[in-house]
């Protein structure tokens, strides 16, 4: 069966420090991978998606970047965190092609202080 792992679960970082959040998927190959952010309140905002190694698309301009160095690894990064980067970050995967749903990781709660 497929599983998705995301870490760390919580993170407190000072403004201006770098960020690296990791997400890995097991039990499948060539998944579509996604990073979402959920700010205060409820909305989920798509940040990045990837349909293959080295292929990253950004939905919104921001202080963050993403990379996919391996087929089942998706990394969210920042060189210098801002206060506004605080939030709950969720990684998700889906099979390529239509008619497959999303499965989410357990999320990382980031607080920038």
């Amino acid at each position, binding site marked *: 069966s497929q599983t998705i792992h995301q870490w760390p679960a919580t993170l407190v970082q000072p403004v201006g420090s770098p960020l690296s959040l990791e997400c890995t998927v097991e039990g499948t190959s060539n998944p*579509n991978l996604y990073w979402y952010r959920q700010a205060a309140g409820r909305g989920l905002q798509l940040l990045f998606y990837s349909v293959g190694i080295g292929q990253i698309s950004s939905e919104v301009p921001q202080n963050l970047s993403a990379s996919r160095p391996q087929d089942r690894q998706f990394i969210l990064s920042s060189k210098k965190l801002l206060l506004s980067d605080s939030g709950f970050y969720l990684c998700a995967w889906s099979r390529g*092609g239509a008619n497959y749903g999303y499965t989410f990781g357990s*999320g990382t709660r980031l607080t920038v202080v």
Partner: protein
Amino acid sequence: GIQVEQSPPDLILQEGANSTLRCNFSDSVNNLQWFHQNPWGQLINLFYIPSGTKQNGRLSATTVATERYSLLYISSSQTTDSGVYFCAVEVYSGGYQKVTFGIGTKLQVIP
């Protein structure tokens, strides 16, 4: 882009009560999912339901794609049902599924 509206935004239920959550969407979609986000933030897939009706225990969902809405029914609610329920619609385009979430219905079940 596609708009997804969920109602009600907030709901308080007495334990044991039934409820219906609604999701309206503005355009044709390839698929629709219902998620439950528990108090710890974990998003759990409840139903993957592009059309028709599905049931899983006390929960059931119905999607009428031609009329662009979906309903989530919770029967005999329990305190563990508390959390936020999201509807997410999926449009397949350019090799990936673009998923748009509603803002959710926050449910609180009180004993």
